């Protein structure tokens, strides 16, 4: 109990505001704890199960509010305003589509492909709506975020470009990724202030190249290390002719390979988070992300072990650990006072009207 006292009681009010002068980086902090989130998680889980999933929308609101309320920047926290009913509606739609898709391919290939077309037409729209929903329902210091990208552009980045990348034998994947992020960040705003995105496609190609080189290099090293043992296994005529030692080697090989594939994702994720946030601005304010791949791998692997050993009870602790590290590696480099942001007058007007109620949240984050 003592440890919490200084944090919550007497935050130096005015000192904080002066600290936000030009150039002084403001670190993001995350005050959530695994044990507190565990309690929220387990209650959410119970209520979700006994209500056959209906409560999951309320659970999402509680979870998001918990994470937002514990994310702090320059002495203030974020807030989430999503309505559980809108989230529930979105989840029902997504579930119906997912179910229809799964059944369609069992009925016939033609039905499956027809359903694929329907999904292709709907998913960009849903992604667009959920971006609006997520940003509009997030706030900091009482000012809502917002998203102004058009539906046409959403179809371009979420449908046309992915199809082109598939046709280009994935050569366009980094470009597509860059365009998606540019679409998301360029059209986001905080109150009346716009975000902007400045990473050129070349930077994404470089990140993908580095990640592929690391991933393939590691896999090659593992293959070489186990090469002799595996060749011996093949000579012995497969598993039936092999002794327990050879089978043990094979299992070890698969485990190491899986661990590598599993730890490669954090590397990729690190490169991307740093690239994306180091090139995003809010008005004239800049962001900085200093995620380190080694630390991310360590967190991901220890989380996996913890979750498997505890049969899942470690999940909330794992989520908090990852989030805390990701958030606390970020800072905002202000170019002036953080008191000067204004709410978007137009958005304020429509927020109370019908526009906001129509929004629908689908849990698709790309």
């Amino acid at each position, binding site marked *: 109990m003592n440890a919490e006292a200084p*944090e919550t009681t007497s935050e130096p009010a005015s000192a904080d505001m002066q600290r936000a002068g030009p150039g002084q980086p403001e670190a993001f902090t995350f005050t959530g704890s695994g044990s507190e989130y565990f309690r929220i998680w*387990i209650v959410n889980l119970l209520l979700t*199960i006994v209500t056959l999933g209906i409560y999951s929308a309320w659970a999402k609101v509680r979870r998001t*509010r918990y994470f937002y*309320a514990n994310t702090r920047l320059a002495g203030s926290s974020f807030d989430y305003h999503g309505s559980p009913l809108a989230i529930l509606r979105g989840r029902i739609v997504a579930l119906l589509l997912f179910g229809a898709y799964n059944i369609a391919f069992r009925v016939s290939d033609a039905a499956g492909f027809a359903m694929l077309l329907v999904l292709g037409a709907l998913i960009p729209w849903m992604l667009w709506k959920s971006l609006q929903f997520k940003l509009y329902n997030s706030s900091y*210091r009482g000012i809502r975020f917002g998203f102004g990208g058009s539906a046409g552009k959403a179809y371009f980045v979420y449908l046309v470009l992915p199809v082109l990348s598939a046709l280009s034998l994935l050569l366009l994947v980094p470009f597509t990724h860059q365009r998606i992020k540019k679409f998301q960040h360029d059209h986001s705003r905080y*109150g009346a202030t716009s975000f902007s995105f400045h990473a050129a496609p070349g930077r994404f190609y470089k990140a993908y190249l580095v990640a592929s080189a690391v991933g393939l290099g590691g896999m090659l090293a593992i293959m070489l290390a186990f090469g002799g043992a595996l060749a011996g296994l093949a000579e012995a005529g497969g598993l039936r002719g092999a002794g327990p030692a050879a089978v043990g080697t094979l299992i070890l090989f698969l485990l190491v390979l899986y661990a590598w594939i599993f730890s490669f994702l954090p590397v990729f994720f690190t490169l991307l988070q740093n690239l994306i946030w180091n090139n995003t601005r809010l008005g004239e304010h800049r962001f900085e992300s200093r995620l380190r791949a080694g630390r991310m791998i360590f967190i991901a692997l220890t989380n996996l072990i913890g979750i498997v050993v505890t049969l899942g*009870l470690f*999940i909330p602790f794992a989520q908090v650990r990852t989030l805390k590290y990701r958030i606390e590696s970020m800072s905002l480099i202000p170019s002036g006072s953080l008191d*000067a942001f204004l709410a978007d007058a137009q958005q304020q007007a429509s927020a109370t009207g019908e526009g906001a109620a129509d929004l629908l949240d689908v849990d698709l984050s790309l």
Partner: protein
Amino acid sequence: MHETIPAFYFDGKSSRRFPVSLTVQDRVAVISGEVQRACPLAELRVSERLRHAQRTVTFPDGAYLEILDPVAFDRLLATTGHEDSFVVRMQQSWRGALAAFALTAVVLFLGYLYALPAAAGFAARALPEQAERMIGGETLAFLDRRLLEPSAMPPARRDALAARFKAMVTPRPGAPGYEIVFRKSRIGPNAFALPSGQIVLTDEIVDLLNDDDAVMAVLAHELGHLHERHLMQRMIQGTMIGAAATVLFGDVSSVVASIPTIMLDLKYSRDAEREADDYAVAMLKANGSGPAALIRSFEALEKETGDRSPYLSSHPPAAERIERIRSAR
């Protein structure tokens, strides 16, 4: 009694924060300091209690207060009669969380053992046969391309086997329409039912059994799968378990999520086999013979496929199945 609580006020129009203090007089919250404002308590929304996060009090127009002295604020809330919701009280106490954990475990366990099989069975029987047929429509064509070849058995023999089975009575009325399909197999002796209502009988199993009574018993077992709507039931159960595992472990790793799915689904598979065995025994009995032919088919198949581990197996071990049938007699 008049508690004065330091807070920051955000007006919802700019990101500026105003140091203020909050007091409550006659069920009206009064803000003083850099901003003056009053609002009836009934119109304010207090954020849920969290251990580390600051609590907020939101006005109807979106302006809000960030409370700086949580201890004094708690005292104030107590005097105004504000109560945490049931969910929040549960989340904020270890006793509540442990109770939630125990209940979750019990609900999951009972759900897996009883509720899900019962609900999936009910849904499968309530769905029209047509739904099942539609879903399995192309399965045989798929198998024909990959695993099956046309039967090499003389047509007269095939017709005789099919006619003999058709002439048997089912243990209870309402058996679905079915068709016995003869195939040569690339995967050894086998017989299985498809959602489309086809029962595939391979030449190899007929040769292996070399005993038409046993072939009839095998067909009765497969008809049992169709009559009990096991295929639809298994599909529903598998989907539900997969969804639950994805909710629990999906964020972590899809490999980790698929392990419990497969393990848990195997129990349902073995349960379905036992039910189909019971059905076959009942069908044999209804036609005036004992379960001996079914037992012979298990013994012959076990000799062929060898003894498999009872764990990680989609079928119960043959010895157990035989024992079950004998003891039920």
